[in-house]
């Protein structure tokens, strides 16, 4: 999943240094992601994983790294499996 998230970041967000040097816990905002970048990332993730982030998840921290994004996606998936 992390590889897929990384690909989406590369596609949706303009980072000055690209995604090559990012590790899973790298802070995307520190890597140059703007507020608009985070919105574009959110929309791209929703499309790729066919999910909709609920309002409680729309915050700055959730989209701050590959690891936090993965945790959120897994939470959403387990919710939908659990019905």
């Amino acid at each position: 999943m992390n590889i897929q998230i990384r690909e989406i970041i590369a596609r949706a967000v303009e980072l000055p240094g690209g995604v090559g040097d990012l590790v899973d816990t790298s802070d995307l905002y520190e890597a140059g992601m703007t507020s608009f970048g985070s919105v574009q990332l959110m929309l791209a993730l929703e499309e790729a994983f066919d999910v909709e982030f609920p309002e409680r998840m729309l915050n700055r921290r959730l989209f701050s790294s590959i690891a936090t994004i993965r945790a959120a996606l897994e939470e959403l998936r387990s919710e939908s499996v659990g019905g």
Partner: protein
Amino acid sequence: MLAKTETATFLDELFDQGLLIETGVDGLYGRSGLFEAIGDGFQNLVTRYGGADDPEVVRFPPAMSRQVFEKSGYMKSFPQLAGTVHCFCGNPADHVSLLQTIEQGGDWTDGQKASEIVLTPAACYPLYPTAAKRGTLPAEGRLFDLMSYCFRHEPSKDPARQQFFRMREFVRMGTPDQVTEFRAAWLERGQAMIGELGLPFMVDVANDPFFGRAGKMLAVNQRDQRLKFELLIAIESEEKPTACLSFNYHQDHFGKTFGLTTAGDEVAHTACVGFGHERVILALLKHYGTNVKRWPASVRQSLGL
């Protein structure tokens, strides 16, 4: 017809007293001489509090270049509020058909073409490209004093939410330290100024009305980073007080967008303090009543009334 039990609103009272003048469109009103005199008093007060910084005074008409507007990114955030100026650009035959359509009560606006002008959504928007054209900022940065009618398409019966309203602004451009110091100073000054007028207020972290679901995310980002504060005064509702002053740190948004650079060759940061001209007048009228002669002597003195 209004039911007899229906209570008159603050807007009704303002119309009855002739302070605001109906035009048939919600949020589009004329103003009386007294309304303007209160406003002049407030503007002089703002100048008294901010003039010592020796800002450069600049005034733009309430419209701006469409090209600059597009570049500003306003449509990304607030497409629902923007107003564009459209004009008839047809030939004499189109004119005949236009008149026929009007005569028949049809939609004559169909053939209107977007002009090169859009309505100014906030007083500072036309300033950034103008400032960037002057080249690199001096070491001390720059400070501007602006005022303009602004347009936002949000029809409402709340007199404090008008579609055409005036905004006075001080805009600071410089290093992050310079602009955040400016904003911190005005957070204090703004409270002292409204305190001088004896109006009850509160200051709170805030967000702009960003559009749609993506906008929720932008709003949360803005609040998390404490980029916007508002000084709120109860006008239309005690529970939901109205933002009368706002203190905004844009970080490098406008600097990057319009190519503003500091003396140290970094992207310039910007911040502004905005004063809702009509909102402060309305707060005074709401708090002290529409008979200005009965306002406390100290308030009248502060406003030169």
